């Protein structure tokens, strides 16, 4: 009981701090013209916001759709000798700046949403593949032996044993990838992909802080939300039998 009270008071402290910060940043934003701009152009911001979310969701979905199966493939017996090799190459690719990935994609695909999504998919792939491999390869071989010995087919072993046990680490990869994706998606504007980058880059170009913040604040909020949401999802999906630092 006492403990609860204490955590309540700590919560109150943070709440107060958050209120204070919001208040201060609100004044600051108002000075920079952020609020004025937002109030003047709600439809445009909303449209770009939706577009941004679309970019993120579509590209992340494709990244997961490609990344998790690739991770599964890389941990199958026959791929074992190539695994590190492929992961190293992917690691090197990841060091290429996101802007460069978008630029390279543009030289082949021209401009538009497709190019943006393609680049985002490529850029978001590595954390997912790497974590899928780490999660699946890190499973205690004893439980795989037990499953095999009890007569599970390779597919049953994968879906009933391997994936549930690797899920926490795979979801962490997805979370990292998605959060990065929210930020990178802002660059879609540069290849005509739309999204909140429109406001950010235009604002920078026009040296209009209010304009820029109208893009930057929702982007940041979206990233924070995605991080929180996928974290919550981990709690729902991952079995209670696997206790990590939840």
């Amino acid at each position: 009981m006492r403990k609860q009270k204490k955590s309540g008071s700590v919560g109150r402290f943070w709440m107060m701090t958050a209120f204070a910060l919001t208040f201060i940043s609100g004044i600051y934003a108002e000075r920079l013209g952020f609020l004025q701009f937002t109030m003047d152009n709600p439809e445009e911001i909303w449209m770009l916001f939706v577009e941004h979310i679309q970019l993120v969701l579509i590209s992340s979905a494709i990244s997961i759709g490609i990344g998790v199966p690739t991770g599964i493939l890389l941990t199958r017996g026959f791929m074992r000798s190539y695994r590190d090799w492929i992961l190293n190459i992917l690691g090197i690719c990841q060091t290429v700046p996101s802007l460069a990935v978008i630029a390279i994609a543009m030289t082949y695909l021209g401009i538009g949403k497709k190019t943006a999504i393609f680049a985002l998919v490529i850029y978001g792939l590595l954390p997912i593949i790497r974590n899928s491999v780490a999660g699946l390869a890190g499973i205690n071989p004893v439980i795989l032996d037990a499953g095999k010995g009890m007569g599970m087919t390779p597919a049953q072993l994968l879906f009933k044993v391997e994936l549930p046990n690797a899920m926490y680490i795979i979801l962490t990869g997805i979370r990292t990838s998605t959060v990065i994706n929210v930020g990178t998606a802002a660059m879609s504007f540069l290849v005509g992909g739309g999204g909140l980058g429109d406001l950010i880059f235009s604002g920078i170009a026009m040296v209009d802080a209010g304009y820029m913040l109208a893009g930057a604040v929702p982007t940041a909020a979206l990233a924070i939300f995605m991080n929180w949401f996928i974290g919550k999802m981990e709690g729902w999906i991952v079995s209670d039998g696997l206790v990590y630092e939840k």
Partner: protein
Amino acid sequence: MIRLERLTKIYPGSTIPAVDNVSLHIPEGEICILIGSSGCGKTTLMRMINRLEPITSGTIKIDGKDVTHMDVIALRRSIGYAIQQIGLFPHMTVFENITVVPKLLGWNKKQMNERVDELLSLVNLDPAIYRDRYPRELSGGQAQRIGVTRAMAANPPVMLMDEPFGAIDPINREVLQDEFLKIQEKLKKTIVFVTHDIHEAVKMGDRIALLDAGNLIQYATPEELLTRPKNQFVKDFVGADRALKRLDLLKVADAMLKNPVRCSTEDASEKILERMVEKNLNYLLVTAPGNHLVGYVNIDMLRGHKGVVGDLARPMSITVRPDQNLKDALSKMLTYDIGIVVAVDDQGVLQGILNSKTLVSVVGETYDEHGGHWGNITTGGRIL
């Protein structure tokens, strides 16, 4: 039931066989122990039976059917599999772990519920408490129990067990072994049981196959392995204390002297005293009608007493049961510093008597094959 014929396993890239031309037959309903030092091929041999290791040459037949001709998945589902590291699935509850194979075999929910409750009760775990726990919430001994339970879930006629009690402390291991033997007595499964512990082998096995460097050295009953080791290797393996190991194997009933000399509670003290002096006995067992043990009397107690022996008899504080093993009996005798212990059954009926001399001579049979003699407890029933 299980017949291995000229079974050989050579791992790829190796020239030395891990299992070399092993033939053995495991009769139905028996526990066959595969024993040997690490790397002797015992686990490999076991894993070939459910084809977790491909067979290089030779055949394995279960119920006359060649396992290589069976569908490997169906084969494995029909064989219980328990391993030393337990391998419970951490993301599944106890219930889900136990029902893995039943689920694969398509049992319905009701069948699975009943089976889980039945099995948990069998291994002395309260289903209400344990069925929804996760493996991380179990102690080592509980997890081992669940591991064995899981192997038995779909009631397979054959079970493979690779040191199933290996990962727990000696006290809990004894308990689990006893529990398991009790279950086995009822279920009569054909079990291939891998261990490196000769004590466990002697205790659990109906037959023991001793392996060394992939070769089958001796395949015999525990009794035979201890009393007639085939060669020096077997002797060394079972250990210089193999005589003591027999204590695990033998029951009190095997070594006790039946029909010890005794008197009845109704007998007159003076007469008994007379006979005891005559026969040079210091003490005497006293039984009630129906051969129920009452206690004992000694000469000093009887002197000068008029009446029946029953009034004087002192109860025995320490007794053993005929089905206890000799190790327990000897340990009791040593603990309470008594030279003689009386065996009574659960109803209190006198069965026999055990003294340190007979114990030593029974155990001594291991050393000299010409046997020993019984020492000199007086037997022959009623003294009067």
